[in-house]
């Protein structure tokens, strides 16, 4: 489940970022600090976008930065980050991005259920209202643990 793959240390609310690359690096930093990924994984997230475009922007204002597991995923995890000021990723339909869900996917099955739950959350307006309102990661954890 989602609550098993994230925790308050992986949540950063109201980050200031100067562009999309900066936003991804800052959103992914807690996953690096908590040894969920290696630096090379962050580099591959960014390389992927430079290579094929901002395909990780999945819905309005929502991005799911991730890379290939072999790029340096150490443990499956999901980070939650919100930006103080949204940034443009170059994805016309869904720009600007305000919410980043950094995914470290180690194993195909382990994170599948969590992703299904995340897919539901993407449609949950109350969840995004909470992300906008709170600066307390505990509140986010409480919400997704419901």
């Amino acid at each position, binding site marked *: 489940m989602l609550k098993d793959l994230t925790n308050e240390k992986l949540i950063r609310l109201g980050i200031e970022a100067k562009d999309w690359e900066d936003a991804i690096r800052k959103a992914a930093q807690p996953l690096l600090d908590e040894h969920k990924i290696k630096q090379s994984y962050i580099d591959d997230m960014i390389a992927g976008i430079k290579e*094929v475009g901002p*395909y990780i922007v*999945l819905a309005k204002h929502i991005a799911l930065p*991730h890379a*290939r597991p072999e790029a340096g995923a150490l443990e499956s995890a999901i980070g939650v980050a919100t930006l103080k000021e949204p940034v443009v990723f170059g*994805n016309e339909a869904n720009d600007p991005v305000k919410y980043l869900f950094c995914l470290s*996917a180690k194993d*195909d099955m382990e994170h599948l259920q969590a992703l299904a739950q995340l*897919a539901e959350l993407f449609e949950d307006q109350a969840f995004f209202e909470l992300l906008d309102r709170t600066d307390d990661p505990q509140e986010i954890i409480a919400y997704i643990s419901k």
Partner: protein
Amino acid sequence: MYKALVCCRAGMGSSMLLKIKADQVIKENNFPIQTEHGNLDSLVGFSGDLVITMEDLADELKNQVPYALGIRNIVDKAEMKEKIEAFLKSKE
């Protein structure tokens, strides 16, 4: 029954979410489509009928696969439904 590959660059994140959403829409509408998921490497030797991916990737794949269906917003079921219907129509 048509065979669809849902893929993204890594085969772990966007493609999984996309498959979850595509399967919901396919089930709700009884579309004759079976999905599997993978990464861009899965395209080598792909023998199915269509590829479902995010729009930025679909543009890249257009010339390599029988049919590339690009989704802009994965939570927009109406978009998914419309695009799958267009694919089915192209097969008539």
